[in-house]
């Protein structure tokens, strides 16, 4: 299988000016600046085969956006190498740029005062797309995202979610082979997130495109990505299947059940994570889950007992809480 993205020992250091608080320090800074090196991305390596959808996870400031920017040619790496579709991104060759796209959920590129249709025409000019082919793709996307009645309204009159749909259409009109999606669903409601997600999945299926996606919404990642790369403090913490991530980082399971005799003392069984009347959720160490379950069933009157892995959000949160030294 061919590789769409190949990253090896990729590193990005920033020099950031640094000073103490206060006027005196600020005045000194006018003449002599102290700089500190920040390792935004510190020696990371991973490969993405063509057509795969990979979730890129990490807390704010972990280095996700920096990595995406290096892969899309916006930033020059300090060290290591990156290749996307066999191009070196930072050379920004037109042949390379024609085959990728970058979507940033918190920034928009469509003309604010014009209907999206006009902005789409502009994309056609920028990418030099053939008129018939462009129309076909555009109308197809408009139909899938059901925005037929909205593309003729000025973008400023659209809701956040509607605008994001337009942004995504605009970003995909040239049918890129590699998609870098940086928080594409940020700030959107659940239905709208789902729409965007489905669309990305469909695009991936239809065109065999490779997708690297960052998101804070685990639902996005669960729905789209089998594989996740977790980055923290500029280093890769985990690279593998989503289920393996949960397996590896989750030390606990939840045991939920309904008590028929609500007076029972539960402390010998584990930590009570939630208790709502007779409905109880216990948090127990993973290796003790089966033992606790059998003890519960024999010593108490319980119904509807289920054992589940921790929600993925909780697992991720516990991974992100790992301090820098341990990472």
């Amino acid at each position, binding site marked *: 299988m061919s590789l769409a993205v190949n990253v090896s020992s990729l590193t990005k250091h920033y020099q950031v000016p640094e000073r103490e608080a206060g006027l005196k320090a600020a005045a000194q800074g006018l003449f002599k600046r102290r700089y500190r090196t920040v390792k935004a991305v510190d020696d990371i390596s991973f490969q993405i085969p063509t057509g795969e959808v990979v979730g890129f996870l990490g807390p704010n400031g972990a280095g996700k956006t920096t990595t995406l920017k290096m892969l899309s*040619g916006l930033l*020059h790496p300090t060290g290591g190498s990156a290749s996307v579709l066999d191009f070196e991104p930072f050379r920004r060759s037109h042949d390379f740029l024609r085959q*990728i796209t*970058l979507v940033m959920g918190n920034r928009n*590129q469509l003309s604010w005062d*014009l209907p999206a249709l006009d902005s789409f025409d502009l994309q056609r000019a*920028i990418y030099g797309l053939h008129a018939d082919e462009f129309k076909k793709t555009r109308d197809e996307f408009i139909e899938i995202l059901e925005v037929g009645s909205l593309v003729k309204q*000025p973008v400023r009159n659209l809701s956040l979610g509607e605008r994001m749909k337009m942004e995504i259409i605009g970003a995909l009109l040239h049918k890129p082979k590699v998609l870098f999606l940086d928080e594409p669903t940020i700030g959107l409601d659940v239905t709208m997130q789902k729409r965007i997600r489905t669309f990305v999945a469909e695009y991936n299926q239809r065109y065999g495109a490779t997708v690297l996606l960052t998101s804070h919404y685990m639902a996005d990642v669960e729905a789209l990505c089998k594989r996740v790369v977790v980055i923290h403090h500029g280093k890769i913490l985990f690279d593998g299947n989503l289920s393996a991530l949960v397996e590896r980082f989750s030390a606990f399971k939840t045991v939920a059940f309904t008590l028929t005799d609500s007076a029972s003392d539960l402390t010998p069984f584990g930590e009570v994570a939630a208790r709502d009347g007779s409905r109880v959720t216990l948090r127990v160490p993973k290796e003790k889950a089966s033992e606790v379950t059998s003890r519960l069933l024999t010593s108490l009157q319980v119904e509807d007992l289920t054992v589940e892995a921790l929600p993925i959000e909780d697992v991720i949160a516990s991974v992100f809480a790992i301090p820098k030294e341990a990472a």
Partner: protein
Amino acid sequence: MNGLRLAWSYLRIGILNEFQYRANLYIQILQTFIALAVGLIGLQLVFDQTTQLGGWSRTELLAVMGVYILMGGVIRAAIQPNMERLMDDIRNGTLDFALTKPADAQLLVSVREFRLWQTVDVLTGAIVIGVALAQLGWSLSALSALGFLSALVMGAALTYCFWLMITTTAFWFIRVNDIANLFEGLYAAGRWPVDIYPLWLRTGLTFLVPVAFAVTIPASALTGRLTFLTWLGALGLTVLFLVVSRLFWRRGLKNYSGASA
């Protein structure tokens, strides 16, 4: 050519955009009218006292004013809005979108905006020039006309280079928004031919801020003052500025992407 098609597409979008703000047209017409009136009154006041200013007659100065208005319109329609957007983009990080497009980045950031209604000034400037020429008896030779047109193009190009270089410093300093005001102030000096100013100011208005090239030299062509040598000098300087500003832009871009660090 691809670049031209791209520029045309943006021009089209810019025009569409301006049609959304019809009120701006009326405001612009009013502004142009006031500026024209103030200019004419100023000219009248000066020539109440004297018959010529630094070797320029009243009619010739009317031609200078025409070029000044016309060039001001060109700058505010096509150059300044693009550079202001570039500044905003650098500060807000939205320049990333322009840099991930398969087109020359400098071309892209230079053609994205167009303020149609500012062309009212271009039109008004052209009319004032026409009136001045009529008063001069339409004595313009074909060669002078050619000199005038080429001087206009070179003046606009030099002004663009000046703006681009100043704006590019935003890659290092992030906030350079006040340069629009600075430029407006200095450009206002172009209302009069630069040879009436003292040497230090004339030099500044020629080589630091290209007001002399934007206004005085095209006006010189109209009034038969432009020598071939000056024209050649302007051509040389334009080419030099185009090259230097491009190199400077690339250097800034390198800095933006951290390639120089």
